[in-house]
């Protein structure tokens, strides 16, 4: 398999007036061509910052270390953004230019990337948007329609890597399925897709691999079918157990503040398997960063 995206030792810190936010810590992963990776986790775990760090779109108060490499090349991200790396943004309502119609935005994108502007209808339809709605302005679109327009804009240049940041938020189930199928089809055509989502059901439906983020780190990264049947990290297991078609049990306690992370495992205060060992940061082994992975201690 060819690596489409390689992240190595990525750290992102935000400097605030009286605190430092540790948004992404020591994160390494490889995304292959045709792979659909779902990055899941609770809100505020650093998932979206990861996407923006990959795209080099972080605000000025962010300090980033580590490397992000696309394919085998070494061109800077800003030369690749758009054409080679597409982003489906989290809140399309704020990502669209309010004074231009969907058709005008989409036609510009197609033109800049050397495609016929008459393709607009086809691209919109592929994203699940009625071509007639392209003639509306963003404020005339519902949240779901704006989401589909943003999706159409991202896929128009046919990027090799597609980052989708909560692309199904605010959509009803048929549209969620449509969007997920679209991502899946992109993978079949060789695109590498990173799907950032809090929707575990969506991840289960389409992902090849799943990375679970907790408090700025990846705590588990394994093939999707193995992950959903037998998670190794206690946090991943607790997250799956909170699904309505499983135990529907919330995880006790709260996630830690990203301004005040412990030196050891950040999940230890909420973990039923915590021991003194957990005061030290666990390394990733066998797909999970845990001193007491569930495959060893036995699932609860």
């Amino acid at each position, binding site marked *: 398999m060819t690596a489409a995206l390689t992240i190595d030792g990525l750290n992102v810190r935000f400097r605030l007036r009286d605190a430092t936010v540790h948004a992404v810590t020591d994160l390494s992963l490889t995304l292959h061509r045709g792979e659909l990776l779902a990055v899941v986790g609770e809100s*505020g775990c650093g998932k979206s910052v990861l996407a923006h760090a990959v795209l080099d779109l972080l605000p000025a108060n962010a300090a980033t270390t580590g490397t992000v490499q696309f394919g085998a090349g070494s061109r800077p991200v800003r030369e690749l953004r758009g054409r080679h790396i597409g982003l489906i943004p989290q809140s399309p309502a704020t990502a669209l230019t309010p004074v231009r119609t969907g058709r005008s935005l989409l036609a510009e994108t197609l033109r800049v990337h050397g495609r016929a502007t008459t393709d607009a209808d086809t691209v919109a339809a592929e994203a699940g948007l009625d071509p007639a709605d392209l003639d509306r302005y963003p404020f005339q679109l519902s949240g779901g329609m704006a989401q589909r327009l943003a999706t159409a804009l991202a896929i128009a240049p046919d990027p090799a890597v597609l980052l989708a940041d909560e692309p199904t*938020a605010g959509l009803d*189930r048929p549209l969620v399925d449509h969007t997920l199928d679209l991502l899946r089809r992109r993978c079949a055509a060789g695109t590498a897709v990173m799907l950032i989502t809090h929707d*575990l059901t969506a991840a289960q439906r389409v992902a090849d691999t799943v990375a679970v983020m907790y408090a700025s780190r990846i705590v588990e990264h394994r093939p999707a079918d193995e992950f959903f049947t037998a998670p190794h990290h206690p946090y991943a297991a607790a997250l799956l157990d*909170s699904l*309505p*078609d499983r135990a*529907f*049990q*919330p995880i006790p306690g709260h996630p830690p503040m990203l301004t005040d992370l412990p030196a050891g495992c950040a999940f230890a205060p909420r973990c039923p398997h915590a021991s003194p060992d957990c005061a030290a940061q666990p390394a990733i082994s066998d797909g999970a960063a845990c001193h007491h992975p569930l495959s060893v201690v036995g699932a609860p």
Partner: protein
Amino acid sequence: MNGLAAHEVTVAYGRQTVLDRASIHIGPGETVGLRGPSGCGKSTLVRVLALLHRPDDGHVSIDGNPVTGARYRVAAAVRTRIGVLFQSPRSAADPRLSLADIIAEPLRATKAERIQDRVVELAYTAGLTTDLLRRQPHAVSDGQLQRACLARALAHRPDYLLCDEATTMLDASTQAHVAAVITDHQHRHGTGVLLITHDPALMHRWAHRVIDWPPDQAAPATAVEHADHH
């Protein structure tokens, strides 16, 4: 008859009729699920039931008593019997207020006593830590803000709680927590809950019966009974 009900309610926005003689009944202590495609009038129905929107025709009744008017024309003692949890906590919370003030607003509206104690109690119930109470919405996550909105919705111990896609944007753990808090409140106060969700697993797990919206035109008042209980 006890319960919160809409009777033959019609609502039109301009020339577009969103609800056409629609009826629904939510009994005390029951959780009624409502599902239907985007734009089918579910959210408008919630606004009518919450007494936020006066229907063009038909009326809402609480425990058999018809309600006339909407919003501030309705007596506070009647209005506060219904709580609402909206889909987007961002657009449902004043960005200038602290979370504590957001939770305290309905209590101040009725000049309740010992507001500070009650805010702390409500925040605890909704799973918010006290350090978050001084923050404004921009400094908390969606999940934390929705917990504050939940605390606000429960401030007057409502007899009816309307949840309009209220957990859609939440991660699985926060969703399970919000559902547990609402169910606990329901058990203690006999609250009737209206649950709007697109998530079949959540609907199956949470709702006592499910209504498909819009209801069949031939039989507008009858709900599709859903056999699955907890």
